[in-house]
């Protein structure tokens, strides 16, 4: 393998990992931006997305339907949770949200175990992307290229939605001053339910997309929640662009770090976070803490 081919495959690998991390991070950061809630159930909902995706893909015989419906279903679960439970807690302090979202994580994890059983389940990559593409003569999984494209499309779509649509305007306004938005006659509660649902749906989208790489498994929830927090802390809590930069940094550091210094594979992400916290305690694009 030539050095150039190696570099290229590693870059695309890093981009594909960053795409998966981005779906997690952006959902978490949107929810935090609007509601000032750290959603501990984010990893569990990511896992739920993978399992719902498994069932849909098997039921419909196509991955694409799972890719569309699983995020919608999990998003609806998230919105219902906001409506039914979180809404009652807004006058309490932050610890109430930590407890209740942690509780949701436990409930989702056990529910998945009861419904789908304890074993990992296979979600094959869609036929269209199950082969390899040659990058400078080196075979590379087409599915990973698809992940890069999906990540880029979603990043642009979310960015445009935040900047150009009325919902985006409301989200940005609510995150800056919810009381003022409320005073202007907007139903802030509806915005909150919507954003919580969207954030959960994005996590589920990440889960469905990750499933062909790692299978749908229970450990997804616990291993991924830490990555999501690290991304949000690096990028800055509540910052959309920050979550994108955080995901890219973590993706690249993990892939290149693992390759050149495999013994320190676990440490790189945390070292990066430490560095960011020392230089900019509020995260790269966050408000100064």
């Amino acid at each position, binding site marked *: *393998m030539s050095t150039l081919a190696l570099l290229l495959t590693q870059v695309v*690998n890093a981009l594909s990992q960053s795409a998966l991390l981005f779906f997690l991070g952006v959902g978490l950061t949107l929810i935090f931006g609007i509601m000032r809630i750290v959603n501990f159930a984010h990893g569990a909902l990511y896992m739920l997305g993978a399992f719902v995706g498994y069932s849909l893909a098997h039921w419909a015989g196509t991955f694409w339907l799972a890719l569309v419906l699983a995020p919608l279903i999990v998003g609806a679960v998230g919105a219902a949770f906001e409506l039914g439970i979180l809404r009652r807690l807004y006058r309490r302090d932050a610890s109430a949200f930590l407890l209740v979202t942690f509780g949701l994580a436990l409930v989702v994890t056990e529910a998945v175990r009861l419904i789908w059983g304890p074993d990992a389940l*296979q979600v094959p990559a869609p036929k269209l992307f199950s082969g390899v593409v040659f990058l400078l003569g080196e075979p590379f999984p087409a599915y990973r290229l698809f992940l890069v494209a999906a990540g880029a499309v979603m990043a642009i779509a979310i960015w445009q939605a935040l900047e150009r649509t009325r919902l985006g305007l409301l989200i940005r306004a609510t995150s800056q001053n919810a009381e003022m938005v409320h005073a202007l006659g907007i139903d802030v509660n509806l915005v909150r339910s919507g954003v919580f649902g969207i954030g959960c749906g994005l996590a589920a989208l990440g889960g469905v997309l990750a499933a062909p790489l790692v299978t749908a*498994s229970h450990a997804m929830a616990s291993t991924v929640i830490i990555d999501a927090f690290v991304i949000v802390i690096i990028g800055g809590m509540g910052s959309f662009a920050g979550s994108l930069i955080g995901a890219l940094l973590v993706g690249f550091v993990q892939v290149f770090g693992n390759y050149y210094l*495999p013994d320190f594979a676990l440490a790189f992400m945390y070292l990066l976070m430490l560095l960011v916290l020392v230089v900019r305690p509020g995260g790269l694009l966050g408000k100064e803490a």
Partner: protein
Amino acid sequence: MTIRPRLTRRAVVAGTGAAVASPWVWTSARAQAGGMIKIGMPLALTGPLGSVGQQQKRGAELYAKLQNEKGGILGRKIELLIEDTVGNPATCVRKAQEMVERYDCRLLTGITLSSEALAIVPKLAEWNAIFISSDNGDGRLTAESFVPNFFRANTSGPMGARVVSLYVKQAKIKSFFALGLDYAWGHNSVQVFEDEMKRLKVNFIGKVFAPTGTKDYSTYITKIRQSGAEGVYLVLAGDDNNAFLAQAAQYQLASKMAMLTEQIELVALRAVGDASVGLIGSARYAFTIDTPANKEFVELWKAEHKTVPDTFEGEQWQCMKVFEAGITKAGGIEADKLRPALEDLTIESVKGKVLMRKCDHQGVQKGFAVKVVKKEGFDHPIPEVISTFPAEQTTPPCNKMTYED
């Protein structure tokens, strides 16, 4: 108003007891508590190796259920104490200690990770407890870390590596690279395999270790391909194994090199499907092993679970059979009686004859090389036995992890 102080107090005591008692403790039969044979299983039921712990649980539960229907062992019912350790050695020691001290349980099995087992064995003498391993791979448990109250009924990591190396000798693969999980078992097995390859004059190009819970195996796959080796040796389990196999298939790694693995489990074959076809490895247990005891066991398993038993379900079953034979021979479960009874005990097991040799308490047993194939009647690929190696070849010399020939 009538006051019933006795009833109230009893209710309070019962309530407190229920609240204090751990929710995972499963009591199969309540009567004759003093006479029951308690077997403690601190298992990794959740976490990356949760699927292994779940298999061990199912294996032991079916055995206990069927044996209790027959009246138990020595007329005493079997009670399993099952707790989740999440695969954490400190938690495992704490839960095992609780079983010993609170429930007076002196028999242990099913400890899922070798790192957990290595943390447990120094405590066995103090606890006066016997621990029969059903899946711990680390060779040190019957070598430098050996303690008299430890027995290993299962095929160890070095034995699995040995089977692969005996197969490599047959298949004439000339160069290897190795990928292992970055903890006790992974390092130990890769080391044994490396030594074996060096003795066979096979070019061992290099090795790399991945932390448990790795989601992206692309860098490791790149390294394996770059090595240019003819074969790759894998020491992976659980979710890591699934992730690696799924991703390696997407890279079409198997078209470049032979993929050999230290252990093949059905749970992984179900999880990754066709991505596992063609994989060759040692199976500590496979439902396709051709022995009368195994045929009987597979039928019992099908009747209960409507499916065939997996690797650690078979291994746990064999381990329970060792307990049964040992306790029957000793006439009790006290460590002082059970230890000598287990030494040089022979049983006819699902894998054929198993001898619990006295020198290092390793179960001397056959080794099986299997190939993953698709077969009619199964909705997932299955392991087919392609070579059976005699126990003398697969079991290392006493207290050793390496082989001399």
